[in-house]
């Protein structure tokens, strides 16, 4: 796979480390009423979709930036690559 890095242009996927579902950016509040249940869901449960998937990649062999990539898990087609910082800004606050 070729990942079109927003700052560096097209890079081979082997330069990157994969972390997982971009929902990991949406860390629950630690002191809410449902925190225990929310952290369980946050840490262990995944939608694991066959289709469009937003996911976190780390450019370890490059500029060490975190990216959020929108990719089809069936075809491996990549539709969008964003810096995780930008993505997080647009994501809004997590709910408890």
């Amino acid at each position, binding site marked *: *796979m070729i990942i079109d890095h927003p700052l560096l242009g097209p890079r*081979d996927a082997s330069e990157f480390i994969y972390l997982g579902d971009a929902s990991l950016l949406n860390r629950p509040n630690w002191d809410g009423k449902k925190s225990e249940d929310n952290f369980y869901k946050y840490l262990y449960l995944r939608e694991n979709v066959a289709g469009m998937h937003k996911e976190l990649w780390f450019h370890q062999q490059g500029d060490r930036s975190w990216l959020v990539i929108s*990719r089809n898990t069936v075809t491996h087609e990549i539709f969008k690559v964003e810096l995780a910082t930008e993505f997080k800004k647009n994501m809004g606050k997590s709910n408890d």
Partner: protein
Amino acid sequence: MYYNVLKILKEGLNDNKGWKKTWQNHEIKKKYDVIIIGGGGHGLATAFYLAKEFKIKNIAVLEKNWIGGGNVGRNTTIIRSNYLLNENEAFYEFSLKLWETLENQINYNAMVSQRGVLNVFHSDAQRDSFVRRGNSMIINGADAELFDVDKIKSIYPFLDYDNARFPIKGGLFQKRGGSVRHDAVAWGYAHAADELGVDIIQNCEVTGFKIKSGTCVGVETNKGDILANKIGCAVAGSSSVLMSKANMNLPLESHVLQAFVSESLKPLIPGVITFGAGHFYISQSDKGGLVFGGDIDGYNSYAQRGGMDMLEDVCEGGLALMPTIGKARLLRMWGGIMDMSMDGSPIIDKTHIKGLYLNAGWCYGGFKATPASGWCFAHLLAKGDSHSLSENFQLDRFKNGYMIDEKGQGAQPNLH
């Protein structure tokens, strides 16, 4: 149809015209006692043991594609029971014992070959951890031997013992491990289940569950609705997609694992060898091809194919261990979709929906588990409570903190 030597002789004289199909095609009934979703190794084994050991009649196995087309035909065919944690080791040792008698049980030649599995180690620290694992195996009734370099040299003289970076210092050997013809496992279980009256229905995709006030009473398929008292799901890499139809999120990620076969060579590797310094395992099939594999590609995937970078990584591991295979040409490669769990261990459990049961999370170790997985899942489906060997493989262990994390990697599925 019962297979035996006399039958083979008779058919040999008869131009092989008298063979019947290995299993029959049946009309779908309106209702079953138990439906197994997924006609892979685990699903077929479950159906077989349900019928044979637990005397359940009226079982159907629903397969989306064809029998033998999924992960049961997409692995590197290795069987072994060399785990560290008791929860895993006891289970996999039970599985290995079932492999040993499998062919008589299912009246089918699955080419079970206990040719020995050798894990080589490369440092003192790794030796200590392998010794610990070997002791755990012995405690749980399995066999394990520690081999020194001379002993390994007598079996595998062609390994790169004096590799500057990863010299081979010894190995952990399990004599009873080995390999099995994987397609024959699928066909054999299908044959044996069919003989016991199980309906095996191919090209039947489950598109939804019929759930009435918290109880699952049947499934919706592309061939119409089918009712059942109990429904067991054993669909490996497709588990999350299937269970999302019951509004469940699972502690799983689906990843692609590749396997590779070389051209046919003369007998070279008598057993199974794994590299201790990278992820690489290899054996030689009876047809002569070197069958080998390594790590998963590492990102969520439902495509049954992987990237070339992992091919390179696997081949680098292979050449570091045995440079002699460097000139062998690659014949085939393929990918299977692994249901990678959050602690690297499987799930055999009921769900919060009554009548709906789950068998998943086998990561890339599902093939060797096939008989025990089928047996324990059948036990759960028939009796409603877990078999003692699978009672730790609970779906809610992640909530309760009872993880079975063999590698100690935490909730990061692509590292297990």
